[in-house]
């Protein structure tokens, strides 16, 4: 029993794996961005992620929820993310990945604000603290 307690939970390995993959994405975007334009990068990015999406679809046994509202929000999410990525790649061409990626990682700032306005979700204290740090970081990094 005591051994089990000391074991790292499986979910934590997956969380660390996620940090690894997404962190690597930021790094590779910077490397490729030295030669490719933001538009070209977004095309390659989309083509590159298709096999994973297909794999997930197979894992779901092709049971895709087809609710019109959900599908529309999902598709709009993809379009917004794709256009946002162009901004990310453009920023990477002019500034270091070590500076740009932490700034763009602040996107939950807007989600939290929009969720407060549109969905009337309440902000918790941790999120409020995060907002202060996020805004401070943007001021510091713009100097």
């Amino acid at each position, binding site marked *: 029993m005591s051994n089990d307690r000391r074991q790292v939970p*499986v979910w*934590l390995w*997956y969380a660390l*794996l996620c*940090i*690894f*993959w*997404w962190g690597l*994405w*930021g790094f590779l975007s*910077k490397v*490729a961005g030295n*030669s490719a334009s933001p538009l070209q990068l977004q*095309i*390659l990015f*989309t083509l590159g*992620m*298709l096999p994973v*999406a297909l*794999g997930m679809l197979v894992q779901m046994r092709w049971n895709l929820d087809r609710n019109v509202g*959900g599908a529309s*929000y*999902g*598709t*709009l*999410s*993809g*379009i917004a*993310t794709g256009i*946002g990525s162009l*901004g*990310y790649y*453009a*920023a990477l061409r*002019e500034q270091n*990945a*070590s500076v740009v*990626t932490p*700034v*763009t*990682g*602040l*996107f*939950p*700032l*807007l*989600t939290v604000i*929009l*969720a407060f306005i549109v*969905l009337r979700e309440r902000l918790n204290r*941790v*999120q409020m*603290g*995060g*907002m*202060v*740090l996020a805004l401070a*970081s943007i001021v*510091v*990094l713009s100097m």
Partner: protein
Amino acid sequence: MIHWLAYACLAVVLWGVCGLFMKLGTNRVSARSMVIWVTVGFVALLPVLWKMTTLKGLGVTVVLIGLTSGLVNGLGNWAVFACLEKGAKASVAIPLTALYPLFTVILATAFLKERPTPMQWFGIALAIAGGAMLSYEPATAPTPTEEPTHCVQ
């Protein structure tokens, strides 16, 4: 020339809007289905992008790195779902995965020889901590599946 921060803010705004759409969408379809629909959105952009540019002139190495960047991002999305399915609480797992820029910083300083100034290091630390804290959403009621409200950056 537009300041890099303006471009970065464009990403923050649009990815932030995406987070709201994800919240609205996952009220109607499963989170996994949402990832597929988000991918449909990416694909829908492709004809527009193809009209504006071409991949001609890009070296094989750059093409492979670009494709790999999409692949690893997709794998990151998959890992989030696997993480939640293995019993992680979204209130813990999502802020934890929001620390991913830390790994980009490590890779960029190690392999690209990027050397942020002390002031930039301070800003980077604030941004990473702020991003993780903003992603914190305490569980309010037990739900059948906890679903991430942002992924597929």
